[in-house]
């Protein structure tokens, strides 16, 4: 292994060739296939030629790159783990490329999987560039949802040797009749950004697809690229499958991270809650400097819209330097922004996680995180966007939007210093993904039961799949369910000549439209009347708009005109926009690492430690909390009870993130209703939970360790899940993945109008008429696992049961309680009769009506 000289020589995988001190000419060529080919200027075997090409760029391979190439040459599969921008693409790619050039054969050889739907041209270019060093005539092409139909058509007949694609497009390729022949020649798969896929159903979908590919090409080598995770070993095992032993290649190239928090000037006017707080905007505008390229990360798209609008208002002179980037904005506009970042014409970009990965735009000088950092791994990744020079310090500036985020930021700073990166845990055998995969395989040449079952079990997430579970999924796609009587008209997969296939062309087409595991509300195109796409918004948002309503989108003030054929037509608004679209979907919970760091930080504050700047700044709020109630401690759990005109409240602050709190709130509500008949409405945030009941409830007596017992935990959770909305909500995604809900695609719209039904309605039908349906069970299990977060809820209960509960009666909601009161959610748990509830609601109404009269 040769020594590396990271400071002098550098090599970056996904980047376009950059300006090097050693090479005077900065090249920036557009992706182009070299035609006609000129012979390689280098001599020797392909790997030797590639080494010379490396040297010609002034690069010396890093130790981890050499290690990865050697491991590939040995025939290993595994995972390469290095920080962003350190050259991991070439670590994974050069080995297979040399191998493929050596053999010089036709057909697909290397598959490069990326989670990004809009594959960056940079990936394509980075994979094409080393071809210049080789004598073999290799083709590099992309295939994604954006690939033109003529290219698709050509690829249907003949795939390039190197193909870049997404998990969804790979599954689509697997639905082709000749899939087995297409993939038989495959030598290597490279899975980029595996950490992004790993813990999701997209990751599971990739696992199943890889199992299929290993079956088609038994010698296949699989290499994943990943950022830092707490569970790298598991990540590696998951990607290579159960029939291979993974090799882990890591590079200790950690860069120092410098975290700073922008403190509010005065706390009096600083809000207690609400993630859309704007108080810091003028200070941020002051701090920004267009000579320093800066990314401003926000946590939601609407927050990004509002900050962009706010900055534009404060600094009109930055108009042409400032841009907005988020996932709903039209692709062309996003590419324009990415291009602007690259060539330096755009200096300040407000963005969401849309710029977390993939897109490479060269070094950015500064990174700002607006609002909660949510997790340590994520923050490190965002910080890594700054100062892409190896060894150089990454800098990130935290901007709080409300007072309690100051505490989060203090905690995040400590956790980052300790590199307390979170694990990402793969899912366990989701049957909806399996059901979809079965239809995919039935289309792609068909399958037999035993062979496919054994193949699926080589996917690590399905290693423990029982015969019953596999057969159940097979029954689901063949007959609808085990009770044939209940599904007389259903058919999708049919056994023909001992192989399972999909003979119905219409159903095949629907499946291809429906493939994938990314679920979102039906989205609607946003267009100007005069023509021109702006992007997408959710149908549910558009359905609430009235003509004439104004809103902010892609930094523009728009007036809604009409909604027709899944398109919302708008025109530029003259008036000030009154609202920002809200996109549903994932609100990230506080991560385990950050949550526990936060408890430690609060404990320190409780002991009077105000040495951290953030805590000193937040002190007025913490002090008010201490005076009105207590500051929550690490070793005990704070509970507050309170009476307001809304009813009787119980607030509890476990600081475990909103998902755990959702599960916990439902569980506690259920256990409390056993003590006394009541209806509770639940409210949760990252810090705690609220139970509210209109009738008096003896919370003080109820809050005993027995309430937190782990006995009958699963049963109780399941029961509360049945009672609450959680399972029904979870079912939405499952129904979509398993093909129970037709996609809201514009093309599919007309033909499937008769079979549109909300997943909630389907859920009710299943609960009533096929209560043993495994998809229902999966919904419950997913709720359990996600609320548990692999035992997180159980551990929380253990903590709550063991630590004394500190019950404080407060006269009005404390600073910690306030955000919970504001953000009440819809879930409720009740064991009263429907009629009782209606009567009481009526009573409240008549009282309310009587009052103003």
């Amino acid at each position, binding site marked *: 292994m040769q020594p590396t000289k990271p400071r002098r020589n550098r090599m970056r995988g996904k980047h376009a060739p950059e300006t090097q001190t050693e090479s005077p000419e900065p090249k920036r060529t557009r992706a182009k296939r070299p035609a006609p080919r000129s012979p390689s200027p280098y001599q020797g075997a392909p790997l030797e030629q590639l080494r010379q090409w490396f040297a010609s760029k002034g690069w010396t391979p890093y130790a981890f790159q050499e290690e990865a190439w050697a491991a590939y040459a040995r025939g290993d599969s595994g995972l390469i783990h290095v920080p962003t921008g350190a050259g991991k693409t070439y670590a994974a790619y050069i080995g297979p490329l040399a191998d493929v050039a050596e053999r010089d054969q036709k057909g697909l050889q290397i598959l490069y999987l990326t989670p990004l739907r809009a594959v960056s041209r940079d990936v394509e270019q980075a994979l094409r560039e080393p071809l210049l060093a080789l004598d073999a005539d290799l083709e590099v092409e992309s295939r994604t949802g954006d690939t033109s139909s003529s290219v698709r058509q050509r690829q249907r007949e003949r795939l390039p040797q190197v193909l870049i694609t997404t998990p969804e497009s790979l599954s689509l390729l697997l639905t082709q009749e000749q899939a087995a022949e297409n993939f038989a020649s495959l030598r290597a798969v490279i899975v980029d950004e595996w950490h992004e896929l790993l813990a999701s159903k997209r990751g599971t979908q990739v696992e199943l697809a890889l199992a299929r590919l290993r079956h088609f090409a038994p010698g296949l080598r699989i290499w994943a690229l990943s950022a830092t995770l707490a569970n790298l070993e598991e990540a590696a095992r998951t990607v290579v499958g159960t029939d291979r032993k993974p090799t882990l290649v890591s590079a200790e190239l950690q860069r120092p991270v410098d975290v700073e928090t922008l403190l509010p000037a005065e706390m009096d006017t600083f809000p207690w809650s609400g993630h859309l707080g704007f108080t810091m905007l003028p200070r941020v505008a002051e701090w920004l400097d267009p000579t320093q390229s800066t990314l401003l990360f926000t946590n939601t798209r609407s927050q990004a819209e509002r900050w962009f609008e706010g900055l534009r208002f404060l600094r009109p002179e930055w108009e042409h330097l400032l841009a907005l980037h988020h996932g709903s904005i039209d692709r062309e506009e996003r590419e324009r922004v990415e291009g602007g970042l690259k060539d330096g014409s755009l200096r300040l970009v407000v963005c969401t996680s849309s710029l977390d990965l993939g897109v490479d735009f060269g070094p950015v000088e500064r990174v700002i995180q607006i609002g909660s950092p949510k997790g340590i791994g994520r923050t490190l990744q965002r910080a890594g966007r700054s100062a892409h020079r190896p060894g150089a310090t990454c800098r990130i500036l935290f901007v709080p939007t409300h007072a309690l985020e100051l505490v989060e930021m203090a905690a995040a700073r400590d956790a980052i210093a300790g590199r307390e990166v979170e694990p990402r845990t793969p899912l366990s055998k989701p049957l909806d993904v399996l059901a979809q995969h079965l239809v995919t395989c039935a289309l792609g040449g068909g399958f037999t039961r035993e062979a496919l079952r054994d193949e699926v079990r080589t996917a690590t997430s399905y290693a423990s799949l029982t015969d019953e579970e596999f057969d159940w999924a097979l029954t689901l796609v063949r007959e609808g369910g085990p009770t044939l009587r209940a599904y007389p008209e259903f058919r999708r997969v049919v056994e023909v000549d001992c192989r399972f296939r999909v003979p119905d062309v219409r*159903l095949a087409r629907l499946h291809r439209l429906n493939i994938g595991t990314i679920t979102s509300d039906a989205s609607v195109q946003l267009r100007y009347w005069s023509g021109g796409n702006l992007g997408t918004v959710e149908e549910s948002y558009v359905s609430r708009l009235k003509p004439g309503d104004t809103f902010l989108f892609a930094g523009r003030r728009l007036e809604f005109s009409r909604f027709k054929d899944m398109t919302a037509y708008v025109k530029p608004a003259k008036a000030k926009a009154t609202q920002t679209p809200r996109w549903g979907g994932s609100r990230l919970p506080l991560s385990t690492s950050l949550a526990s760091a936060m408890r430690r930080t609060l404990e320190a504050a409780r002991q009077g430690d105000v040495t951290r700047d953030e805590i000193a700044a937040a002190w007025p709020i913490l002090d008010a909390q201490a005076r009105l109630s207590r500051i929550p401690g690490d070793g005990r759990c704070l509970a507050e009870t309170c009476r307001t005109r809304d009813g009787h409240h119980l607030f509890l602050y476990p600081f475990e993130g909103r998902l755990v709190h959702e599960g916990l709130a439902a569980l506690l509500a259920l256990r409390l209703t056993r003590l006394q008949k009541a209806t509770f409405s639940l409210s949760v945030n990252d810090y705690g939970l609220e139970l509210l009941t209109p009738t008096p409830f003896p919370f003080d007596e109820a809050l005993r360790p027995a309430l937190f017992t782990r006995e009958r935990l699963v049963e109780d959770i399941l029961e509360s899940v049945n009672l609450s909305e959680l399972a029904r909500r979870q079912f939405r995604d499952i129904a979509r993945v398993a093909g129970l809900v037709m996609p809201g695609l514009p093309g599919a719209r007309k033909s499937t109008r008769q079979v549109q039904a909300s997943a909630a309605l389907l859920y009710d039908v299943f609960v009533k008429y096929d209560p043993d349906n495994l998809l229902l069970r999966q919904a419950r299990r997913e709720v359990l696992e996600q609320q548990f977060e692999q035992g997180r809820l159980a551990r929380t209960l253990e903590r709550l049961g063991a630590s004394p509960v500190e019950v404080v009666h407060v006269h009005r909601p404390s600073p910690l309680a306030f955000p919970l009161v504001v953000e009440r959610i819809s879930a409720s748990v009740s064991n009263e009769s429907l009629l009782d509830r209606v009567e009481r609601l009526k009573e409240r109404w008549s009282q309310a009506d009587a009052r103003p009269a």
Partner: protein
Amino acid sequence: MVPGRCQTRVADADVELLPERALHWPQAGVLAVADLHWGKTESFQQHGIPLPLGVLDDDLARLSSALTATGARRLLLVGDLVHSRQGLTRDVISRVNTWREAHASLEVVLIRGNHDRHVRTLPPIWRMEDREEVLDEGPFRFAHHPEPAAGRYVWAGHLHPMVRLTGGADRLRLPCFHLRPGVGVLPAFSAFTGGMDVRRGRKDRVYAVAGTAVVEV
């Protein structure tokens, strides 16, 4: 008064709103229901969506119980009887027929709705009188689409009205009867239907179907 039902006066006639999601007009011996969507589950199944049967049997049983309880002589089906042509399978036809035979002396009238347009003729075995648009009777007009008519109070369907009840800690969403001046919208009869929240006008009356009772809210 039968418990659970709600009596009210509309256009100088007494009517009852039933928790079975039906309108009863005792004086005329009429029971009216809207949006039955027979064969909806089967339509889903034929599109490769594995949805279990059961809704139709329960819906028919509920219809029978409303007919028996009221002793109605005529049944008005106010549109969207059949979900789609594909859903009208032999099995659906025969199950409905079994129900029809149990109410052999009942007079059944269909007032067609938008879903029914795709089904040109109903199975004759069901013995239903088929009306294209509207049925006028006494002070009332029965029509699928809730459009006002001069001189008559219109009973309609189509909208699948739902009402949201919220207050302090609790919230519910229930099917409802929405009685506007001039037009009364019936709840969708089928249990397998979504719905639209009602926009309540000042003079409107809204009756929620809360399990086994109808409650004015």
